[in-house]
């Protein structure tokens, strides 16, 4: 396996100067996740490899069926049958310099200790993510008191008010039930909740899909400020590349369960290396630039159970050559990005 060399170069190349550049917080290698079915497994995530710098914002963009949700539940070790991690490692590096911990083989007890203090999660729909029959404050208190032994009710309350204040929610809301709040407020509350135990990484699964653009901007503004102040890293998973281009340091593009391109936001926008990235970028009509007729990406995403041979994107690819249907494209490194496309290999370019 040549992963070692590749990863090092990649992280040096690709970490687009995260604040402080204090090293890696998460190191994911060859992560493969399958859905076990009666006739074998369907691989929803294959050989996913990336590093996340401390305080960095990594965006993961993909369409339905690209494996991005699968990746999230695997990263957070929250997957349930029939999903299962069949290969790879997820190494989390604590901030105090202790050696990294691979989350994949970890038992539930050890995992529980790491949860929320190291890595927390924000789900797409806050309405579904909050317990409908518990007051908001209680949902903060139970996580606070689980991870901070000895914290009493009063202290938990103080901390809850402080956390809610960070996202602009008034203290009296701690007494509210989720259904008594607006969608935007609920989503902000779950972000405050995610920060309760000062994690080093917050994973966000489509955090703004259920809210409107104005609220989306407000929420992202808060997340970016809090990240600046508290220094946690963020992984945002969404189908909305246009949003990621504005908020992420680096972006990974997923297609058919693979990361087909990863690189700095600007590089992916200005000089996308993978035809799929290019197509995805051109699927967002501009807000101010002159209009031309755009076409998106013709065709439909592949069925994961019946992936095309060679490059999974070749049937939809406008620039595919014959070899694309038979050869698996290798990961090719470019100055600000890396992409899996045959056309980028020296043989193709020469």
């Amino acid at each position: 396996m040549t992963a070692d060399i590749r990863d090092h170069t990649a992280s040096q190349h690709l970490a687009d100067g995260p604040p402080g550049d204090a090293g890696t917080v998460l190191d994911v290698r060859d992560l493969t996740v399958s859905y076990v079915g009666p006739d074998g497994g369907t691989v929803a995530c294959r050989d996913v490899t990336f590093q996340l710098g401390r305080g960095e914002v990594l965006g993961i963009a993909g369409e339905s069926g690209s494996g991005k949700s699968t990746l999230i539940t695997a990263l957070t070790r929250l997957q349930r049958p029939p999903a299962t991690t069949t290969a790879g490692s997820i190494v989390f590096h604590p901030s105090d310099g202790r050696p990294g911990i691979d989350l994949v083989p970890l038992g539930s007890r050890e995992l529980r200790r790491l949860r929320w203090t190291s890595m927390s999660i924000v789900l797409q729909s806050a309405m579904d993510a909050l317990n409908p029959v518990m007051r908001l404050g209680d949902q903060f208190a139970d996580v606070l008191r689980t991870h901070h032994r000895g914290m009493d009710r009063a202290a938990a309350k103080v901390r809850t008010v402080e956390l809610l204040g960070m996202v602009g929610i008034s203290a009296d809301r701690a007494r509210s039930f989720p259904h008594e709040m607006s969608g935007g407020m609920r989503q902000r509350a779950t972000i405050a909740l995610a920060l309760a135990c000062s994690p080093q990484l917050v994973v966000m699964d489509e955090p703004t899909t259920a809210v409107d653009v104005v609220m989306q901007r407000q929420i992202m503004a808060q997340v970016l400020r809090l990240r600046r102040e508290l220094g946690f890293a963020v992984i945002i998973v969404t189908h909305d590349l246009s949003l990621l281009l504005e908020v992420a340091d680096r972006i990974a593009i997923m297609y058919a369960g693979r990361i087909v391109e990863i690189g700095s936001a600007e590089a992916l926008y200005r000089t996308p290396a993978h035809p799929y990235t290019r197509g995805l970028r051109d699927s967002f009509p501009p807000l101010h630039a002159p209009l031309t007729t755009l076409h998106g990406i013709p065709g439909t995403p592949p069925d994961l159970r019946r992936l095309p041979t060679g490059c999974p994107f070749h049937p939809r690819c406008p620039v595919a050559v014959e070899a694309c249907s038979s050869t698996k494209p290798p990961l090719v490194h470019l100055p600000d990005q890396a992409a899996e496309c045959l056309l980028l290999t020296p043989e193709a370019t020469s």
Partner: protein
Amino acid sequence: MSVATSDAAVAPTPETPGSTPTTTRLRVPSRWSFMVRRLGFYLAAAWAAITLNFLLPRMMPGDPSVAIIQQLQRVSGQQLPPETLVSIQALFGNPDANLFEQYLAYLGQLARFDLGTSISRFPTPVSEVVSSGLPWTLMLVGSTTVIAFVLGTGLGVLTGWKAGGRLDAILTPASTFISAVPYFWVALLALWVFGFQLDWFPSSGGYDPDAEGVAFWLSALRYGFLPAATIVFSAFGGWLLGMRNMTVTTVREDYVLLAQAKGLSPGRVVLRYAARNAMLPSFTGFALALGGVIGGALLTEIVFSYPGIGYLLYDALTKRDYPVMQGVFLLIALTVLVANLVADSVYVLVDPRVREQG
């Protein structure tokens, strides 16, 4: 949030109310008015039950009131006093009065808690007969309903949480079978095995007629054990299955996922997140089951000749004691209604989201 629009036949929920923020959702402190509405329904239902009780004997072929009067005269061997005649006719039909007059007389009779006179135990009033059986049934079925609920729900949460585990593999199919078994048949089997073969428990009755004081209560426990055990056995499977499936469904809700992501202890995740929500439908079921207590174990009581309401009803049926039959029905119907009302109130208390349902 449910929205009633003017042209509901084709109108789906409009986009607005669901997404309007805070104030819309806070605006509805209508738990009380919700309860008022439900109370209205139950009053109507009570009225319907009382009216049904009025109409039943009058719709039946033959003339129950004449039959009752004849029977009473035969049993007592004397002419009935006129006020007894009036009372019977008010309850079971008076061929000389029109339906409306009869109805008024019937309601007046009920208002005085006069349910007529028992035929088989002449001249005991029906209300007395019924109340003699009530405590036994309340004790037997009441306690077993609670035990079955606690047991079934608890095990249901466990099997649902560990779905696919060993407990689930054994308990779920077993419960499916058990909950399909006729409960009076279980009672028969229990009686056969533990009552006669092993002779561990008395086979009939509710207490030792010779015992007094503490001994009486102990005998009541001993006599009641077998019927109670069969009721718990037959009933807990249903609770278990319902709770298991609700738990399996709830466990896959995002808020349980998030609770796990928060690193809470499994016990906390199960109890405060999964079970708490999964239990909501069961609460209603439980309150309803409590309502069914009175009429719930008719046949078990009969198998064990247990001196409760069920046995009374059976006795009345075999002896054609229509006044007692009707009295028992009215009692059962009204307790079911009260229990439903309690169920609704409980639901409003345990689920903060409840405001209004159809």
